[in-house]
């Protein structure tokens, strides 16, 4: 009888303990990998390879989403601003939205979907086929070899791609606002110059560096601790994308509130 009463409590306790254990383990994984960044030997060839994979290969998808995001912002912004006879402020609205918020967040989500999932799957397959054990048996540190280059590449590639996203988005807004809706080119770019400050740019930069760390950390962690077989890798990949995406949005709120 008592078992029936306490079973749900025990199960709830087990779930909570599991979550606390998972949080602690993933936190320690990040701290350890971040510490290894500063400890030689460095792996420039691995970092360049990851930069190519995470950064260069994501450029097209980031530019594509960036230009359409800018165009949508311009259409919606023009519609709203026109009601207040403030259509001349379309440039700053598009630019500030992109630089402070949408550029870092949407580019991070796109890179997460393209590269983060692939990193989790690759490391997960290495785990289940004992390739990570093989690295350990060669007296090498698999975290240094697999995770650190991803973290560094993430911290470099995410801000650069975010800038690409911002620039192409502003250009998309220009195409819609100036070329389609007839705003003056001078007012579009002139108001951007007047209203966008250095602080706006640094906020976007800090955000995208943090998102780079989040995506690299979660995708490597999930792959590194993948379960058994194809199902384990599939679960790790899915969890990597979902957890990274949620963390990006949650962390974005805290940074937006902090830098308000």
């Amino acid at each position, binding site marked *: 009888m008592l078992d029936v009463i306490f079973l749900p409590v025990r199960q709830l306790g087990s779930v909570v303990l599991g979550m606390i254990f998972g949080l602690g383990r993933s936190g320690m994984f990040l701290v350890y990998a971040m510490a290894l960044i500063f400890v030689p030997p460095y792996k420039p060839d691995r970092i360049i390879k990851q930069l190519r994979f995470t950064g260069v290969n994501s450029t097209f998808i980031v530019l594509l989403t960036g230009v359409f995001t800018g165009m949508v912002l311009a259409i919606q912004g023009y519609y709203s601003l026109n009601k207040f006879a403030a259509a001349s402020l379309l440039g700053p609205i598009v630019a500030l939205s992109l630089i402070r918020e949408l550029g870092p967040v949407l580019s991070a989500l796109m890179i997460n979907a393209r590269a983060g999932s692939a990193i989790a799957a690759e490391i997960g397959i290495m785990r289940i*086929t*004992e390739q990570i054990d093989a690295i*350990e048996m*060669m*007296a090498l540190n698999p975290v240094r070899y697999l995770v650190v280059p991803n973290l560094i590449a993430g911290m470099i590639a995410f801000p650069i791609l975010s800038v690409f996203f911002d620039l192409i988005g502003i250009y998309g807004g220009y195409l819609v606002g100036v070329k389609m809706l007839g705003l003056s080119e001078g007012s579009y770019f002139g108001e951007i110059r007047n209203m966008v400050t250095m602080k706006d740019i640094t906020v976007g930069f800090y955000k995208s560096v943090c998102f780079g760390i989040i995506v690299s950390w979660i995708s490597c962690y999930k792959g590194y601790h993948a379960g058994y077989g194809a199902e384990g890798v599939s679960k790790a990949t899915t969890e990597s994308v979902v957890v990274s995406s949620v963390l990006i949005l949650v962390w974005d709120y805290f940074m937006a509130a902090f830098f308000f």
Partner: protein
Amino acid sequence: MIAVDNIHKSFNARQVLKGVTLRVEKGDILAVIGGSGAGKSVLLKHIAALIRPDRGSILVDGIAVPALRGRQLEAYRARLGFLFQGGALFDSMTVYENVSFTLHEKTRLKEKEIREKVYEMLGHVGMRDEGDKFPAELSGGMKKRAALARALITSPEIMLFDEPTTGLDPIIVNSVLQYIKSTHDDLGFTGIIVTHEIPKIFSIVQRVALLIDGTIVSAGTPDEIQSSDDPVVRHFLSGGDDGAGSEKP
């Protein structure tokens, strides 16, 4: 010397090792034979410090393996070679890159010297012409031989082989076993081979241990094991054809 004393290991509720004790003298090769799922690979991974025991001790030349961490662990593993059951080749690298990986990472050899060493090793395992291929382009036997070349390239003091001949045809089995023997004669490594290759394995090892259901039920020289009157040993060596009717009477 490798000294394993009374090690226990459970995964969730399943007890895999139930007090394994064995010794391997320096320069000897021990064959660990036993049924599938008996815990042979788990035992090997304990010695490689890839898994830590719940209880018991593992001493290698007086070093307590489960207690090793950080640089001490790296130094210990630098003395080891491990041939994984599935090969564990890096699938994004060619055979040459796989075999040369440790030399690139851990030595200061020039590329020319590495190339010579790698192709010499690939020649020993009959894969001199396969250096540019990726693991996905290789048969199971070729993967195993490439993995063997990778494990032996650093001339380790201790070699751990996890089923080095499983899935190979009889001719390749003989050549791999003979290669292990000749390498052992040259390098004098201390080795443990987990295998089902009975009776061929008896000709290249100094000692044999029979692991059944997580415990060593018998150990001795190949002759002692083959002439043993122990019904468990007889039953296993006969492949169940002795009429005993169960794995552990």
